[in-house]
């Protein structure tokens, strides 16, 4: 006889989505699991108006009005009745933030003279979700500040009731236990970097004209995202060559590229709905020219976006969550094991992260108002430099976030390659050298 386990959900208990399960137990110094999206406007930001706009956002997206709690078996979300706070911007993005100081909210709204930023703990949503929140926030801010009344293309409609899909976990819908699990891959090369590290996030921001990079990418038959991934791999290959002189000892260089599954599977969820394409090269086989890397990246990206493979990855991830041993083990035991095994199952497999939010589509009313858009990701202890990409108007911003205090070799190789390829790169930073 088959025994079926009945799901029991107590009141005020909102289960984390499958992809979010790993973030609360692994949160620590050098592993903040946060990211930031921001928009710079031409106008001076006023705190009172921003608070009003935030109130509207939470009224529309009540599923973001939650706080995180540790249960006996799992971490869970529950409705948060406290007042959301608006903070002045600090000195670096995507650091650890204390939920307590933020009234328990998993996102933080920050402002500076011209900037509205949304910093988010990954358990709440992914980059695309956070961008949707930010768009709505800016929309409401502009409404109250009498700047303009508009709606972002593809953004949330403030006046519409939230759909059920917005806070559903599509991973659970797409889980098919009859599929084979996705295979585990070997350890990748990790660059330790030189010099000291600390938990301050150092940023080097490169602004690139979209037209120029598009031309170079098109000439090679690849997309802008693939061009940037190839450049990243190329820079890592050069660094590995210096560090590991013997060719056969060189480990594979791989990148983790988060993919937004909303378009692929047609879900409009506001929770995490991202899987990672792991693309890379095998330097043990020999030196790769940039053209060879670009070709590899293009092919591997196409394969990674295949629906069947993605479903197999979902099968592996959700299957893990549903394993009785994990499901019924107390949180007290699961937490330390997640902390100790997370590198083995995640960061170990790739040498860097490149997260691309794509082109930010602006409504015509806002085109002259936006000065800059940014996206920052917290780096890790194993992969100490993270790279994020966002496009707005005619510019692409590539942000390198790093824990390394003085070592900027990876950034240098990345930027100089683009300069040599004929692309104009403008840099700004929060590192001490510059200010």
């Amino acid at each position, binding site marked *: 006889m088959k025994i079926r386990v009945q799901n029991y959900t107590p009141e005020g208990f909102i289960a984390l989505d499958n992809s979010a399960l790993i973030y609360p137990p692994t949160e620590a110094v050098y592993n903040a699991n946060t990211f930031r999206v921001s928009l710079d406007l031409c106008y001076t930001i006023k705190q009172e108006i921003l608070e009003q706009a935030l109130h509207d956002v939470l009224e529309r997206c009540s599923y973001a009005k939650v706080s995180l709690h540790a249960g006996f078996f799992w971490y869970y979300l529950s409705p948060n009745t406290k007042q959301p706070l608006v903070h002045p911007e600090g000195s670096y993005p995507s650091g650890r933030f204390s939920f307590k100081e933020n009234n328990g909210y998993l996102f933080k709204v920050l402002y500076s003279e011209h900037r509205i930023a949304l910093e988010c703990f990954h358990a709440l949503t992914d980059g695309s979700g956070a961008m949707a929140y930010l768009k709505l926030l800016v929309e409401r801010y502009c409404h109250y500040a009498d700047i303009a009344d508009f709606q972002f293309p593809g953004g949330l409609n403030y006046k519409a009731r939230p759909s059920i899909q917005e806070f559903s976990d599509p991973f659970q819908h797409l889980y098919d236990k009859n599929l084979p699990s996705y295979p585990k891959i070997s350890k990748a090369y990790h660059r330790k970097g030189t010099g000291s590290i600390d938990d*301050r996030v*150092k940023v080097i921001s490169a602004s690139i004209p979209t037209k120029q990079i598009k031309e170079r990418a098109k000439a090679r038959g690849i997309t802008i995202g693939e061009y940037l991934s190839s450049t990243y791999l190329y820079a890592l290959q050069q660094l590995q060559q210096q560090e590991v002189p013997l060719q056969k000892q060189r480990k594979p260089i791989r990148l983790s590229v988060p993919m937004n599954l909303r378009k692929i599977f047609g879900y409009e969820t506001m929770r995490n709905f991202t899987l990672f394409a792991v693309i890379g090269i095998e330097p043990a086989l020999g030196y790769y020219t940039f053209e060879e890397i670009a070709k590899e990246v293009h092919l591997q990206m196409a394969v990674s976006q295949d629906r069947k493979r993605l479903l197999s990855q979902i099968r592996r991830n959700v299957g893990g969550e549903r394993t009785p041993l994990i499901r019924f083990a107390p949180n007290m035991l699961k937490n*330390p094991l997640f902390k100790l095994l997370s590198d083995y199952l995640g960061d170990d497999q790739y040498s860097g992260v490149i997260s691309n939010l794509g082109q930010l589509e602006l409504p015509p009313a806002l085109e002259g108002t936006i000065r800059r858009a940014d996206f920052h990701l917290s780096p890790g202890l194993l992969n100490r430099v993270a790279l994020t990409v966002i496009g707005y108007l005619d510019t692409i911003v590539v942000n390198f976030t790093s824990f390394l205090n003085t070592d900027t070799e990876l950034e240098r190789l990345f930027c100089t390659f683009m300069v040599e390829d004929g692309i104009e790169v403008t840099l*700004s930073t929060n590192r*001490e050298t510059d200010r």
Partner: protein
Amino acid sequence: MAYCIRCGVKLEEGSKACPLCKTPVQLPPGMEESKQQPLFAQNLPSRGLGGVNKTRKGIIELIISLFVISELTVFLSMWLSGNGSQSFIPLFSIAMAALSLILAFSVKPTYTMQASIQCVLVAVYLFGLDASDFRIFWSLIASPALGVGWLYFVYPFTRRAMQKPKKAAGICLLGSLGYLALINLVVGHSLTWFVPVTLPVVGTLLILLGLFALWFTKRKNKRVPLADVVLATLVVLFGTITSLDFFLSGYQLGVYTLRWSTGLLSTSLVVLLFLVSVSVSRRVRRFFTSHNRHN
């Protein structure tokens, strides 16, 4: 807007150096760039917030979880089998082992720090074991012994002891004397043998050490041959043991005499005579030394 002459990247207005290669920006004389709005509202703080990293946190949490589970299991099994009253020692042992592991992973991984913490924990553990029957006896000797061990094997390696070695030596000696007095108090309930035996023996040791130190440091050439140090150590050692025999016989028999250390005394006197002769007469020293080293 300036360009980095090495990397070729464009730098934002007001930049002093290229963030990639640190090459300073060289502007034409008299030209100054206005400062652009910084990337973030504030400058980077001088240092990070710090904290326990993921792996270390994981290990500590795992130890705590296993501690709670093992404590519950041991207590319940002993209680259910009717031996609940005897569960203190196993429960206390598990708690101390868990605490020791947690501290090993959470404090600074230096020899002095780790050894000091483990010494304190073992001392507390011994007190705890002894106090399980609500009486303290043997732990009053065993636990302070760890303190004396710490004085000789850990304290000399601390920064403070290395800066002031004479003071550190004095502290070690006082600590040892205090420990001997404590043993006498615990076993005999008064200072029965400490005053008539230990103090004079330690006094003899100090006098001999002081005399040799004075002699060696006041030598014309500051170099002290290793052979002299070894011989002096023998004299100090034999002399101290002889004094122990002398004062012990006075304490036990009431008569101050040498019972078994006459041979040691004569040996030490011969060695001392030899030491004096080699240091006074260069001819005697050369007779006992290799000529190759004196050309």
